[in-house]
């Protein structure tokens, strides 16, 4: 089982991450989640800044990956989260899983995203035509976590 975690300002390449994930010979299933900066409905988003708590972010992501590994049989887990200022459609986060079977790969990928959304110390601030706003936490993210507990 291999775990790779990165918190970085630079963009990441899903194709390279996929190549790393698919080279696990005993794994028949790869699931990748990628989260992108979404346009606001009125198209007024200029950019978004991701603040984090350096040091804790890497620890939190590692801990979440290890929890997933204890829960399912996984061949590889890769998590990359960007920080800094991002434009609409930029990549924010990627979670990739390789596993023998698809059910474990899907579950682990969604589990990691649900924990990351609730437990990893990142905060988004939107820069819009109307001003700058901190993004509010969503009740749906809290609910998503509840089903794993």
């Amino acid at each position, binding site marked *: 089982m291999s775990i790779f975690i990165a918190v970085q300002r630079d963009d990441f390449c899903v194709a390279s991450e996929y190549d790393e994930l698919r080279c696990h010979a005993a794994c028949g299933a790869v699931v990748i989640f990628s989260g992108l900066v979404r346009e606001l409905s009125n198209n007024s988003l200029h950019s978004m800044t991701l603040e984090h708590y350096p040091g804790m972010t890497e620890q939190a992501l590692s801990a979440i990956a290890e929890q997933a590994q204890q829960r399912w049989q996984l061949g590889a887990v890769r998590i990359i989260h960007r920080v800094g200022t991002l434009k609409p459609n930029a990549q924010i986060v990627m979670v990739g899983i390789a596993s023998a079977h698809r059910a474990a790969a899907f579950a682990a990928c969604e589990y990691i995203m649900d924990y990351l959304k609730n437990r990893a110390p990142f905060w988004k601030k939107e820069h819009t035509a109307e001003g700058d706003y901190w993004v509010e*936490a969503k009740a749906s993210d809290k609910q998503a976590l509840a089903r794993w507990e």
Partner: protein
Amino acid sequence: MIKILFFAALRERLNCEQYLLSCDGHLLNVATVLKQLQSRNSVWQQELSRADLLCAVNQQLVPLTADVQDGDELALFPPVTGG
């Protein structure tokens, strides 16, 4: 000393990134530290009383009942919104 860090909207509203609190060698818990900070003024009172406030001691999320002592890093922040 306890090193207290504030992040994101909370950091902006308190206009404070870092705060050093002397605890005179006492073992405190997060709730008692929060009480001390709240007593600074009405903004701190309000912001640090929010029910959704999260705290981490030495970079691990903990409940308000967690212990905190000399040399610890205590971080206080609003609900996270990454991903």
